């Protein structure tokens, strides 16, 4: 008898923590980890919503979305980590403060 609102609240908290991590960290790796946290927050919300939806049936759209999110997260992690490696090769560091070539 878990209230749905609490599940969503948990998701919101984790999402906000992930977002906070994006801003307070300068290490690219940890920034990617924060993004993974945000993905997981979304997954929690999906599972909660799927439960809400799946009162009678066994499966629901909410559950089906979770593997998709995981697949996208895996792709993102692979590309992101390749970027980290590329950046490390180029600069010898993973500090995002070094990436300022996009300055207008």
């Amino acid at each position, binding site marked *: 008898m878990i209230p749905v609102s609490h599940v969503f609240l948990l998701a919101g908290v984790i999402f906000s923590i992930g977002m906070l991590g*994006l*801003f307070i960290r300068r290490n690219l790796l940890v920034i990617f980890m924060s993004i993974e946290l945000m993905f997981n927050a979304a997954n929690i919300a999906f599972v909660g919503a799927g439960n809400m939806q799946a009162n009678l049936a066994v499966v629901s759209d909410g559950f089906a979305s979770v593997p998709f999110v995981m697949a996208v997260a895996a792709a993102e992690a692979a590309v992101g980590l390749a970027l980290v490696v590329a950046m490390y090769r180029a600069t010898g560091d993973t500090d*995002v403060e070094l990436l*300022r*070539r*996009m*300055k207008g």
Partner: protein
Amino acid sequence: MNLAVVFTFLLPLCGALINGFLGQWFRKDSGTVAGTIMFGSFMCALIAFFQNQASPIPSFTLWHWFPISDTYTADMRILVDHLSLTMAVMVTGVGFLIHVFAVGYMDHEAAPERFFCYLNFFVVNMLLLVFSDNLVMMFVFWEGVGLMSYLLIGFWYYKPEAASAGKKAFVMNRVGDTGFVLAIFWLFYYFHTFNILEIAGKVKELPESVVTGITLLLFLAVTGKSAQLPLFTWLPDAMEGPTPVSALIHAATMVTAGIYMVTRNHALFNLYPNDPAHMVILTVGALTALVAAAIALGQNDIKKVLAYSTVSQLGFMVMALGVGCYIQAVFHLLTHACFKALLFLTAGAVIYGMHHEQDMTKMGGLAKRMPMTAACFIIGCLALAGFPLTAGYFSKDAILSAVLLKDHPYAWAAGLLAAVFTGFYSTRAVWLTFFGEWRSSHAPDHIHETPRVMLMPLMILAVLALGAGFAGWPEGSGMLYKYLEVTVKQPELKGHLSMANWLATILPGLIGIALGLFFYARGKSPAPVVALFGPIGNWFVQKLYLDEIYEFLIVEPTKIFAQACYYIGDKAMIDGFLHSWYNVCAFGGSRMRRLHSGHLHATLASFLAGVVALFAYILVRGY
């Protein structure tokens, strides 16, 4: 679908494609290919001509082009009748001879296949113009011949004069073509069809003012294409093109398209024979004949003389149109095609022999060195001057008598004076070129008789220039009249000319020739025209200052207007507007670029600010 007719224009099309796409691999033989194909086309035209004698060939549709209204579709439709077949035989026949001549004339050319491709394609366009069943199709090929004329005038595009002459021809023809398009639209407004024969059938429904308007617009097109006053100045300039082009396009065929077009639409012109439009046509024709002949008196360039002579002869044809005598006009068109093609080709042969010298004052005494060419040129000049029993005599006489019988004595007198001038400048051209002393600074040793491949067409054309006139003799009931009367319905001429009038119609040519001989055959060095005519002669030499007048009246104001448009419209308004926007954007950009600090955190913050705003909006609005 009649195969002979189809092949008449399909063969030159194939020739154009072969020479255009494959010609570079057989450069030296491209002329032979084009000439052979033209011979086939000429044979097909003759076959079609005789088939039509046996049993009339019906008109047929090549393909449906595009639907215009629910009831009418513009078709590519071939109209076969006596008029179009006559023209087709003339175009292919003269075209064939000129192709043969061009094989010799262009033999030093680096890329003759381009020339022959254009020339063949011109013949296609001309034939389809002649065979057009409706006005839209006719207009398309009317423009087609104009395009080929442009390309061929500018064939030596690296010469600036040739390039600008082509441009001039194109632009001046546009003025006339505007009239053609407007006339087509006007006719469609009343009849909802472009078909020439359908229009001819229904044309009686039109009020007089409308017919006058439409015929005047059509005549505007004629003044452009057939080089009449005030639009004729492009034709002398068009002589910058190779001489076979001048012979084929600017003497024999394309410039007569206007005459053909009026004859084709004769039902429209026949309707109100006394309306102002006919007065305009007659006046323009007579003035053009006279003015162009006068200018021809003062020219030293042999091709320019022939060019003005062409304009003058076209003026005669237009006079005939103005009095509603279409068959006489077509008769003169045919004989003129023969003797003017002959004259141009002989001039071309002379120019070829003289290594591209066109100034008659630097020639002289060539008759001894190229007797056959000289004989051909003299025959052509006799026909042009209207010497009795030559081709030009019959047709010009037919026109002048028709004008007099229709009771237009002033136009008749102008025609007579033009005929005197014609005789004079023909004699002058003959004498300056072929008789008297050699006047060039170069030695004349290298000048020989024209090569045979060029001489054969000349001789055939010379025979035609002597004999073609008998097709229209006796006047009003000759072979050609009988043949064309089936198609062209024109009011019959009433009354007969008195002996004195008849004599007056023969004599001018003879007087002109006599005058020319009197002034030029006496002395060893020819007197310049200015010396003969005084200050008026100077006017002739300067082409009546027509180019200068146009320059002052039209070109300069247009340039000033264009400058004004450039400074006010382009610089001030468009550029001003755009530049002010540019300044706004540049200013905004210089401020906005501070947002792009390049910091990942700044980018993230702005991105996520958007996400949060969107989320908030959805929450507030409800989902």
